[in-house]
């Protein structure tokens, strides 16, 4: 019986290990700071995971023109927020929403007011054979003329010819809130409610649609047209949701004043990076990933 018991403990231990290694907010990158000159600084930033590809591109660009180095941790905004409250050593925080930077600001944990670094756009997207067939998409040989009336995903949404509609949980993700606003504006909220499936974040919502489990889904435009290649390579068919149908999806950032960030000698680097974010070059990169920016 002791054998069984120790086995149990081993299983529990193993699970604990798995959860440690799979925690996305623990950075696997190492600081290259040690042999840099006195001027070179490393700044540790936290980034919402939906902005991962864009931020990696931005950092590459920044580091090519600067002595300074950026060490980025990616994770869910909610987790990063909790970690910052408990002393995580981040200097800059790029959130996926406005509420978390604002809350930190109100708690006096920031040097600056929150500012918007990117605006997200919604797309109503499908990767389901069934829907693509309805829309007569070229990639499929089989056409059904009687459905010519359906021009795009919005028509499919209105027609109700789908089983599941994926959206991000409005409680957790601004893209979810925006999607909800769109449904309200289109007067489809009540009609579709029974078909909703909610992702915990926009990435998961994307998975629901890309695997075809939900025939339709409100995802981030950046996920559909972004420069990063999707492993699933779906045929591109989506309806870009007009901006007027929902409040802007603002992704805000703040400069933190947590004790940990104070100890790091990184002010110059942080300032320089924030300045870089406002350059035309950076803004172009951000837009190329399907976001809008305020400046341009």
């Amino acid at each position, binding site marked *: 019986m002791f*054998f*069984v018991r120790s086995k149990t403990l081993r299983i529990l231990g193993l699970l604990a290990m798995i959860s440690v290694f799979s925690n996305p907010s623990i950075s696997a990158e190492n600081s290259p700071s040690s042999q840099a000159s006195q001027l070179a600084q490393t700044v540790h930033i936290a980034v919402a995971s939906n902005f991962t590809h864009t931020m990696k591109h931005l950092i590459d660009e920044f580091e090519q023109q600067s002595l300074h180095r950026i060490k980025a941790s990616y994770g869910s905004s909610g987790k990063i927020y909790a970690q910052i409250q408990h002393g995580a050593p981040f200097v800059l925080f790029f959130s996926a929403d406005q*509420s978390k930077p604002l*809350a930190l600001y109100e708690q006096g944990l920031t040097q600056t007011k929150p500012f918007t670094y990117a605006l997200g756009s919604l797309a109503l997207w499908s990767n389901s054979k069934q829907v693509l067939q309805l829309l007569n998409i070229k990639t499929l040989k089989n056409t059904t003329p009687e459905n010519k009336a359906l021009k795009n995903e919005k028509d499919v949404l209105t027609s109700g010819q789908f*089983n599941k509609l994926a959206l991000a949980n409005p409680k957790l993700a601004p893209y979810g809130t925006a999607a909800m606003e769109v449904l309200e504006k289109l007067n489809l909220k009540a009609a579709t409610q029974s078909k909703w*499936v*909610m992702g*915990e974040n926009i990435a*998961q919502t994307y998975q629901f649609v890309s695997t075809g*489990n939900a025939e339709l889904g409100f995802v981030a435009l950046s996920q559909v047209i972004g420069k990063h290649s999707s492993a699933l390579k779906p045929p591109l068919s989506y309806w870009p949701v007009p901006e007027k149908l929902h409040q802007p999806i603002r992704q805000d950032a703040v400069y933190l004043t947590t004790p940990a960030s104070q100890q790091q000698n990184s002010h110059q680097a942080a300032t320089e990076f924030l300045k870089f974010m406002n350059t035309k070059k950076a803004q172009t990169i951000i837009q190329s990933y399907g976001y809008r920016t305020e400046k341009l």
Partner: protein
Amino acid sequence: MILSEADIGAIGLTLRLATTVTILLLIIGTPIAWWLARTQSWLKGPVAAVVALPLVLPPTVLGFYLLIAMGPSGFIGEFTQSLGLGTLPFTFGGLVFASVIYSMPFVVQPLHNAMVAIGNRPLEVAATLRAGPIDRFFSVVLPLAKPGFITASILGFAHTVGEFGVILMIGGNIPDETRVVSVQVYDHVESLEYAQAHSLSALLVIFSFFVLLALYASQRKSSLAIGGGMPR
């Protein structure tokens, strides 16, 4: 304790899920464990490895594979569609299916250990007492493996209650259908509703503590009852 109606719904759903999964796992896991304990086949290693895979795979990875496999173009999805059941993600049945796979090692391993511990002798004895294979299984293996069944039930149940990653991936957060306690806690944390998160988490911790306490108590009791009875 601040428990909303949604929280209570989630608790009820979780208990329903864990009970269903535990019963199914005992039904499915028993023959698998028995086969693993007895077979000389070369398939034994591969099968044991497949059963244990969920121990190694991060739950989100497993959940992602299941999402694809159970989707309309996945092999499980095509099968369930051909049966006219539609696809499994975002349904209670889907959660049950995924949880059965995910919790399988927690049931099969203790059963397997208990069955191996029985050894060959009691079965040979039963055979010389005119018990055929099925009779032997029910009159000898099941009662002698009882501690293993208790351990397996408790672990399977507890592990399903604590399951999160897989359900997150395939659940779709539908109230009373797929929104279980762990997902509810996660939602509370992510939306900064820490008080509710604390209440629900505290409940989970207390529950888990008593489940594990019951497990260890049952193991001590059974080792006293059976201990030294059947030397090999």
